């Protein structure tokens, strides 16, 4: 049984704006699925529907085997949720927050206390457990948010942009924790606008733009759709044509660019050494070389004609409108 099954999910807001337009996906038990897309693509709206915070205006979905509309309480018992920007009460202490979360999930008092200690230690916050959340850094808040989502050992964990705005060290800490949870059997559905996050963490990636999934697969499959890795080789003057001839025996030589010899390699990094050896044996001096692999951004560009990261990422695929900025309309 799939942990998450989504069929034609839709959500319209006031003025007829459709933030999610017929999303369909399946996440297997024990999988990490990343929903990748820019701000306004419909990621958060989808997560809010799957976590029963928002009713769909079309389609259906099942989470942990339960329908998100008809069996919402059962869905809520099975899931853990860490929402965007860690909505934590700055006046509570970390320990109080975990206790409250444990009460919400009906853990007996003694078990709640033990679980709070365990989770705070697990995310490295035991030293700050009795400090108010308002004094926590962004990374600490995210870790606390993650810990609170785990209090009842959920089968499916939803993480909405878990590392947005975090420094690289905090980001890596969150990634490590997500991997550890997944190894322990938790299914993870995360949204992100970071290519690297999807690439590093996810078993499968769904790319969403303007409320629709435009591509889905493992990171490797997706990248393979837009091309093969190629090697860019800088060599001594006058040797370009001869070098093309040599590397052409090992892969498909591409037209030179800016004086660089380009060769597409089916085997990727594994084929770099043979190319270097062949050039060396031919007496061609290599000044530098770089293996260029397709990225998920290339996939995004290929599917949408726009870049996901960098310039104007926030608006890149905008238009659909995230629900936070929208006034809801009657369903």
């Amino acid at each position, binding site marked *: 049984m799939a942990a998450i099954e989504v069929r034609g999910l839709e959500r319209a807001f006031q003025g007829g704006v459709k933030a999610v337009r017929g999303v369909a996906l399946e996440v297997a038990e024990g999988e990490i699925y990343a929903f990748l897309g820019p701000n306004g693509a419909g990621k958060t709206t989808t997560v*809010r529907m799957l976590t029963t915070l928002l009713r769909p205006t079309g389609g259906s979905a099942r989470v942990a085997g339960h329908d998100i509309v008809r069996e919402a309480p059962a869905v809520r018992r099975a899931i853990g*949720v860490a929402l965007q920007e860690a909505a934590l*009460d700055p*006046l509570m202490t970390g320990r109080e927050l975990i206790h409250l979360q444990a009460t919400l999930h009906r853990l007996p008092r003694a078990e709640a206390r033990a679980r709070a200690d365990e989770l705070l230690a697990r995310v490295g916050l035991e030293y700050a457990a009795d400090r108010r959340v308002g004094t926590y850094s962004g990374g600490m808040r995210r870790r606390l948010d993650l810990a609170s989502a785990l209090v009842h050992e959920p089968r499916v964990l939803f993480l909405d942009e878990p590392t947005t705005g975090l420094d690289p060290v905090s980001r890596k800490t969150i990634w490590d924790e997500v991997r550890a949870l997944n190894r322990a059997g938790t299914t993870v559905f995360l949204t992100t606008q970071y290519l690297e996050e999807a690439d590093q963490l996810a078993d499968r990636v769904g790319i969403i733009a303007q409320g629709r999934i435009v591509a889905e697969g493992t990171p490797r499959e997706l990248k393979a759709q837009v091309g093969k890795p190629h090697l860019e080789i800088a060599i001594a003057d006058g040797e370009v044509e001869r070098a093309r001839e040599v590397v052409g025996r090992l892969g498909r030589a591409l037209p030179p660019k800016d004086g660089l010899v380009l060769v597409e390699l089916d085997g990727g990094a594994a084929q770099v050494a043979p190319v270097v050896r062949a050039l060396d044996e031919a007496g061609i001096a290599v000044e530098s070389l770089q293996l260029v692999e397709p990225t998920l951004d290339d996939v995004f560009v290929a599917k949408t004609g726009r870049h996901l990261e960098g310039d104007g990422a926030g608006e890149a695929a905008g238009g659909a409108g995230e629900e936070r900025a929208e006034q809801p*309309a009657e369903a």
Partner: protein
Amino acid sequence: MAGLVANARVVASLGARSVRQTFRRPQLAAPIVVFPSLLLAVQTGGAGGAVNLPQFPEVNGFLDFMLAGAMIQSCLLAGNSGGIALAVDLEMGFTDRLFVAPVSRYAIVLGRLAGTAALGAISAIYYVVVGLIFGVTYEEGVGGVALMVLWVTLAAVAFGSIAAAIALRTGRASVVQGMFPMIFVILFLSTAFFPAELMQEPAATVAQYNPLSFVVAGVRDPVVSVVTGAGALKAFASIAGFAALGLGLSALAMRRRLRLG
């Protein structure tokens, strides 16, 4: 039964959080203690001679008369502060954390109101002690004081439910905060700070029929006179009316919020 117990635990936990939050955020606590205390001090000090006016009710002192007004002002503001805090929770997304938990979503509002009730009781006890320190005589003794605390606690819940409805409907703390002036208008158009007999028309008529005046009378009677069945019934009916209005509107606002997301 297990579900009921679980929801009761949630209500208690959220109520405790609400009380802690109020004491940790001075801007939520100040309206409950500081403003009514200041008004009580200023009015008692400056207008104490009013007790000598013809038609002023028989009281031992102006503070005896004013104490009920301060208590009702405090519980009105406690209710409003609870509404503001709920709206802040909605604004910062904290309620989403509660809404994705497997508990009744109405328990979440009841938790907030449980906190408001506790604050109402605390403020009532505080003003009873203030009264004792400054020489107020409680004509109905300990039983009367207990009744005062009960009325103020229930009134805090009732007023809090109206503020909660506004918070749930709008999701904006600034809107709930904007109710402050309205609270003072309603207070001054009741018998909280002045007897209806000495007011000019049309304020006198409005005060006479303002349900808040019946609540004030219910809190004031144990201090200045005797508790009567009719007075207690009017106080209870008024509080129940406010509560029915507030809880009904809160339920509607909650349903709308859950439907629309």
